[in-house]
Every structure is written in C-alpha cells, then in structure tokens.
C-alpha cells in the first residue's frame, strides 16, 4: 500500500501536497481502523473473555508505527488526527487517492464519486484481515413474553433475505445472511457492480471488533494512545505502553 500511496501522492511546484496517497481516519473511534492494521500484522488486541488486552505487544506497536510513518516519515497521508466524517468528501474532491472507510459508505461513494473507483480488501502484511463492524438486535431477558415475541418478529422481519439484500444495496453494508446474496436482485446488482461483494468476501479473514468488559473505557484508553502517537505527542511504543497500563487497570476487577 505504501508503494502505491507514494506513487499517488501529488505535490505542486512548491512542494505542497495537492493529493494525499492514502487516508486512514483517526477521529472518534481510531481503534476500529487500527484493527485493520493490527489484524493483517498477525495480532489480536484482546482475549476472547474480554478481560485482557494486548496493546503493548511488539506487533501492535509495529502496526501503529506503520500508521504514524504514513503521515510523518513517508508523507503520503495528512499528519495528525484525520476526521472520519469528512473522509468520503475528501475522496470525492480528489484530495485523497485511497481511503479507508466503512463498507456502509459504498452506496454513498457509488452515487457521489464522479469518476471510476475500485474497492479492495485491506492489504495483507502477514495475513489478510479486518475487524467486523455493525450492530446487533437485542432481546431483553426481563421484557414481557409478548414484548420478546414482538422483538423476535421484528428482528426476523428486518433480516428477511429480500429486505437484507435491499438494505445492503441501499447502503453498502454487507447483507447479513448468505441467502440474501442468492436473491435475484442482489445477483443482478453484484453482476452490474462487482465490488459490492468485496466486503463480504473479506469476512472470512475477519476477527471480532475490539470488545472487552468496560468496553467504552478500555476503547478510550486505546483511542487516546493512538491519537497521542498520531499527533506526535508520544512515540508509538510509549503510547501503547500507557494504553495497556490504563486498560489493565480498568480490567483488573474482571481478572478474578
């Protein structure tokens, strides 16, 4: 990716960048995009029980170093923290050549990009990989029987193959069940717009999104560390050591 990003970065006569090679946004929830760097580097950020994190593992620090270097050393990405919300617009304005974003943006890009574009899986360093994303339907144990049944009915309604296919086509999100991809309209859509299935095909390499006890707090510990490294306030190793210490402190109670 770095090699392409270097080729795609355009500078004007006085050396100012007019188009960045690549953009990985880092505002709000950088941990999620970071998993797109750590997973291909062959490392996971937490254990399955969600009471232990591995933010200071060398492979994690390496991944962060790579991210920081894109902006600071190789100068193919805007340095500092990059806003998530304006990233698609940056792409439409041709200010960035490659962007990392949610597949839920795909239909938006399809409608608003006034040029040819492509979609590809995240680059593989040691292996392919990405975090999962999206949300869930919950049915509460304490709800009344009637409410539970109604909730099940609603969840079923929302995930019917035809509806899931339509939802996927209208947003870009991955249609949630395999048979949605077998519907006539989805088949026709993918035939006409083949990149629509890239995110689905990447799922086989995906790992779980960062999720622990006290999730918001642990996530913030990581986010703060990532932003500190990206803005240059801390070195990647130092930032990840601090994030790990904070996460370990928060998770201490869940280790018993």
């Amino acid at each position, binding site marked *: 990716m770095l090699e392409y990003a270097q080729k795609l970065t355009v500078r004007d006569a006085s050396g100012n960048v007019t188009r960045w090679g690549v953009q990985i946004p880092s505002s709000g929830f950088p941990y999620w995009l970071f998993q797109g760097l750590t997973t291909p580097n062959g490392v996971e950020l937490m254990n399955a029980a969600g009471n232990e994190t591995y933010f200071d593992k060398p492979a994690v620090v390496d991944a962060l170093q790579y991210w920081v270097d894109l902006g600071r050393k190789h100068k193919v990405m805007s340095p500092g923290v*990059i806003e998530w919300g304006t990233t698609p617009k940056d792409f439409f304005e041709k200010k960035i050549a490659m962007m990392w974003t949610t597949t839920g943006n795909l239909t938006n890009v399809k409608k608003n990009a006034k040029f040819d574009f492509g979609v590809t899986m995240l680059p593989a360093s040691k292996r392919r990989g990405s975090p999962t994303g999206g949300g869930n339907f919950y049915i509460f144990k304490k709800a009344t029987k009637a409410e539970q049944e109604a909730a099940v009915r609603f969840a079923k309604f929302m995930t019917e193959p035809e509806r899931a296919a339509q939802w996927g086509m209208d947003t870009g999100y991955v249609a949630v069940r395999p048979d949605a991809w077998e519907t006539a309209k989805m088949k026709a859509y993918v035939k006409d717009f083949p990149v629509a299935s890239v995110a689905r095909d990447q799922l086989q390499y995906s790992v779980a999104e960062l999720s622990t006890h006290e999730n*918001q707090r642990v996530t913030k510990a990581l986010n703060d560390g990532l932003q500190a490294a990206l803005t240059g306030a801390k070195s990647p190793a130092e930032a990840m050591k601090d994030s790990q210490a904070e996460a370990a402190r928060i998770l201490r109670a869940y280790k018993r």
Partner: protein
Amino acid sequence: MRLGAINAVTGWLLVLPAAALLALFTHFPVVATIIDSFYATSRAGKPGPFVGLENYHVMVADEVFWKSLWNNVWYSLGTIPLSIGLALVMALWVNSAMRGRTWLRVAFFTPTILPMIAVANIWLFFYTPQYGLLEKFTTGLGFATHNWLGTESTALACVMVVAIWKDAGFFMIFYLAALQSIPPSLAEAAALEGAPRSYYLRRIVLPLLMPTTLFVLVNAVINSFRLVDHIVVMTRGGPNNATSLLLFHIYQVGFSFWDTGYAAALTLVLLAILAAAAIGQFVFLDKKVHYQ
C-alpha cells in the same frame, strides 16, 4: 395580628409553585448528586456500596479530568472576553444610523438561532484540510496546509472560535436593547458640551451598559461550561483529549462508561465552579454596577 398571619400564609402560598419547582428540579438533584458521589456505581442491578471519598481519590488521579479542567479554564478565558467584546462592537455598529443595518443585524444574529449541532457540522467542513474554507484562505496566501482539528496545539482554539461566533450574536441582542434604552438626550447634551465621541462612549455609554454586561457575563460563564455539543460533533474530545471540556468528560464518564458514582463526583466539581463564579459575580461585581 391575624391579618399579618393571613398575609404571611398568602405570601407563602404564592411562592409555593415556584419554590416547589425549584426544589424539585434544582435543589433535590444537587442533594442527590452529593449523596451519589459517596457511593460506588451500581453493578448488575445491585446498588453500589458506600465508598466515602473514593470517587474523589479517583478524580485526583484522573489525568483526563485535570486535562479537561485546564482545557475548560483556557476555553473560558478565551471565549468569554472575546464574545462579549465582539458583541459590544457589533451592537454599537448596528445601532448607528446607516443603510442596510437590518440586514447586518440579521446576519449577526443568525448564528444564535442555528442549532449547535448543525453549526458544528458546517464548521467541520470550514476546518477541513486542503479544500475547507479556512484552508482556501491560508493556502491562497501561500501558507502550507494545516490539519486544524487534528493537531493538539490548534484543536482547542478552533472549537473556541465556533463558540465565540455562536455566542457573540446572542449577546449583541442584549447590548442592542440596552443601547436603545439610553435616552438620546444624553448624546445631545454631550454633543452640546463638545465631548468627543470616545469620551461619551467611555463615560456615559459603557457605565450605563454595566447592568447588561453583568447579565451577559453571567450567561457567558455558564455557556462556557454548559455548551459542549460542538465538541461531540467536531472532535469528541480529541485529539488525545486536547478538546475535552469538563462537561464533556462528565458526559463520557456518565453515559459512555456508565460510571454514575464517579460522574456524580465530577458534577459536583462543575457545580462548585459555577456556584463560586455566580457568588463572585453577584457579590463583588454587583457593587460596581450602576443601575438607573
């Protein structure tokens, strides 16, 4: 004697509705917050145990809290004087007889009526590197491109500008109303006596505006601690807590982390700051204010 008693009862009955509302929505929550701040957050439906001052010990060790507090100090020091000063200048300007002043008034007041969330989304694009409005100016003048909201040293100043822009128009309205209540005869008398305009402004107008200034100042202080909508939209407290304000931190602790016990303790700090500011303003400044 009996008449006096009846009068007293009538008086109490008359203030009862207001007093009841005040107690229910102001005094009760304050007392409840104080009590909550001594308890741990309830987990899995079990009420939290009494932990004494533990939440306050956590606070002292909480780096993000100190960072947010200092950010808020700078934020207040930056936004309050500038928005009030700007409001006064704008009010003096649109109070003068000139063509198109209605349009100018509308333009100055527009930021106030827009919802902060919408405003923040607009400003987000103003600050966007490379093609944002601000960058169009700076790169046009030959400066290198800068990631305004993504750099720790400039992010806080950027959100302060949004707050000033939003508040100044609102405060202008109060100044405008106050300016129009100053009798024109004063200006005429000053002109007859040959007082220069600057002297008239300094010795007549500004003292007469003092009650308004006090009112606006109280509002500005409250706003600088109360309004964090734009933080949520523009930076979510980032990069690395550079724009985290006290109320935003309380919001995160309370409603992202659901650590309500600690959030209660943090809320008390905010409450103490605002109470101190209010007392300071009303007790000390009030003496310097000249009421007609």
